[in-house]
């Protein structure tokens, strides 16, 4: 895909920036939430919430700074939107899987 001739990336500043800002944040919160559940100590480990909050900007800015690598803004929204949605679905079903209330 990356080798195709038409693969030159388009700037699409506004749509990509919005994808990075909004979807990036949504994805970052979901990743942090999945780590909160599945990571060491689970959801109830004392003071782990502080760590979970602190790493959100790390995930967020990683996604946001790499979003400009998408070929177009539309692709950024589609791919990142799908990943974000999937992450939130995973987060939503996690309590059932882990059998937690």
């Amino acid at each position: 895909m990356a080798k195709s001739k038409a693969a030159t990336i388009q700037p699409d500043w506004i749509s990509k920036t919005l994808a990075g800002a909004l979807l990036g944040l949504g994805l970052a919160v979901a990743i942090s939430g999945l780590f909160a559940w599945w990571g060491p100590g689970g959801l109830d480990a004392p003071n782990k919430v502080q760590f979970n909050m602190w790493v959100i900007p790390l995930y967020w800015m990683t996604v946001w700074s790499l979003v400009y690598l998408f070929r177009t803004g539309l692709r950024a929204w589609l791919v990142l939107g799908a990943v974000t949605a999937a992450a939130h679905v995973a987060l939503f079903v996690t309590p059932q899987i882990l059998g937690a209330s």
Partner: protein
Amino acid sequence: MRADIIKTYKTLHTWTGLIAGMALFIAFFAGAMTMFKGPLDRWATPPGNDIQWVAEDQWLPLMQQTLAAHPAAAKGFTLHLQPGENVGAPLVWDANPERSRFDPQEPWGATLNERGELVTAPFETSPMANLIDMLHQTAGIPGNGHHLFGVYVMGAVSILYALAIVSGLVVLLPTLVKDFLIVRRGKNLKRFWLDAHNVVGLTSLPFHLMIALTVIVFAFHDFLYDALSVTVYKERPLFEMHEHHDRGVDTVAENLLPPEALLANLKTQAPDFVPREMMYMGPLGERAEVRIAGENLEHMVRGADRGFAAMDPYTAELEGTEYLPGQEDPWTEIVISIFALHFGSYGGDFMRWVYVFMGLAGAFIFYSGNLLWVETRRRKQRRNGGPVEQKRNTRLMASATVGVCWGSVAGIALSMSAGKWLHGTMAADSLYLWAYYLVFLASVGWAFWRGPGRGAVELIAFAGLAWLTVPMTALLAWLIPAVPAWVQTAPGPLAVDGSALLAGLLLLEMARRTAKRVFHGSTDSVWYAGAQPIVDEQAVDIREKPA
């Protein structure tokens, strides 16, 4: 690496850097100063706190007598274990406990005289060190709500800053190996500035990433916690409250344990912890707690220079060890490390100086970044063969950069000196703020009026002289005690004067070198301010005009 990626990320780097650069310059310069907030606070405190200090066994009677005589102290007070220029008395409380944190403080101090009688008086603190810290946190952007408005702005600036860091790295990747750490000092000044910008940027990359990410958290943590609460924790509380327990004694002043007993108990549990202050919170209430702040050079600490232990002042039971250095649980340990990385509160004074250097190096990155943008614009115009007259917005950007950067540097220094010479003429808070903003805004205006070239030389020289007023003030106050200014002669405060002297001399040297470029450098630059430019479209190299 593909050219289109480089091009995209170069644009990203240019604009994020340009927008964030000036605010970051101010925040980094003031931040470098806050590394020595303690000495700055002692430096700025007027002398006159010659108060009787008390022995350890007098701590308890002092507390009990103060609580009996001054009900406001029951809201909370601080017991200082060591004297210092900026410590008004062994026991200090706020006479206006309802005040918001934006109202002026009304600190009172209490001590015991030789006969064991209570002596209380209001005393003067200096807002200066705290205002420099505020400048660091807000870049001087005024306004406040629940948080300082400038803190939110700096959070947004830090998002741009993080994008600028990553995009800058992407742009450098293709030439990373070839050009790594090379600074080419040739005739091409732009190449030299770019190399310097890259070297400093690359070598301090982890530091800058850490600063950018922590500032985003400092600004937006409430929203991030809310997001976690809504999507993850749901009805679970995010933070456990300390369990309220029946301690079996009434919370009245007579039952307070002697502070030295609490410290002895703490010592057995945390031998390396060196206590500095004991903050009694609501000492006569059901939730009475004493927070013992102190240092531990072996461990990273949660505060800007302090770790904390919480104790019950009636039972000497350790309540929370979350922030007691070396006794945290693993998650808190990680979070504390992140705090400490931002504050540079590990490794003692050596690490503080490293952070000062990193802060100033950061300020250089932002300043040079803006200058490079200006330089790049210039070259584009030459290729097109247009007039050598520089474009208006390029000149304006150059002027703004020069005015904002050097205006803040000069403003801090002059407000420090004004705080001493004009002491007592108006409320200290207003005095410092007026002096800073007056110098800052005047400098910005000056830069626009004089143009970037002349403005840079004059403002850098002005900033140098401004910093020299600091040691000159100390010298005059020492020679002529009758002047309103004062000098604190302990090593810590004197180091402030010494550093200011060094800063002043370095800035004057910088002004001299900038002048050389501005008046004798290439004529087709926004920086050129010498005689009538020689218009020569074919020039390829930047030529030195014969002196």
